[in-house]
């Protein structure tokens, strides 16, 4: 089992552009969460998807949106990129978070120039 896989690993975008990040959850996991981790900070919760619906959202603007597909994979979209969006974006999946917590991917490093 490859665990949680994210693509791409690195990305450079220009301010104002749009970006899509992808995540495949661990086999057997049906819930996907996205996090933004700025340098020197802990991960910040963006939103969580379950059964193809956004179940909960953190304190992020509407420029951040997502999607979950029937096979549980997920995308994170960010529109109108700002320099401050430069960060490591982490995807995490779970089956029963209370018991097992979340399994994290290696992340996508987004740089906005």
């Amino acid at each position, binding site marked *: 089992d490859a665990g949680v896989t994210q693509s791409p690993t690195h990305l450079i975008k220009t301010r104002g552009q749009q970006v899509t990040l992808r995540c495949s959850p661990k086999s057997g996991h049906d819930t996907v969460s996205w996090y933004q981790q700025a340098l020197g900070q802990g991960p910040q919760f963006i939103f969580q998807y379950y059964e193809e619906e956004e179940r909960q959202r953190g304190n992020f603007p509407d420029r951040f949106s997502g999607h979950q597909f029937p096979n549980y994979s997920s995308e994170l979209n960010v529109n109108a990129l700002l320099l401050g969006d430069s960060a490591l974006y*982490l995807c995490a999946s779970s089956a029963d978070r209370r*018991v097992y917590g979340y399994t*994290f991917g290696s992340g996508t490093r987004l740089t906005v120039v």
Partner: protein
Amino acid sequence: AQRVTQPEKLLSVFKGAPVELKCNYSYSGSPELFWYVQYSRQRLQLLLRHISRESIKGFTADLNKGETSFHLKKPFAQEEDSAMYYCALSAGNQFYFGTGTSLTVIP
């Protein structure tokens, strides 16, 4: 509001010495707490969850609801314990992370 505080950004101990990484939380409900570890160039991985009361790699953590703490402890630090440690609180469907403590074990 939910919050996780890790007061120490950096912590250095000598090999064989005891280590304690502090974590305090604020949450009005019944907390579910976890410790995650990130070794150099590796992904975040689950170390401990309070619900299981287990010991992993010699680490233990006890939930103290009176002091709203979930400190991570190990009696004898090893060089391979050098890593970034994050305390996390599960509240509903959200996970709140602390800012992390970078542990360095000096040989």
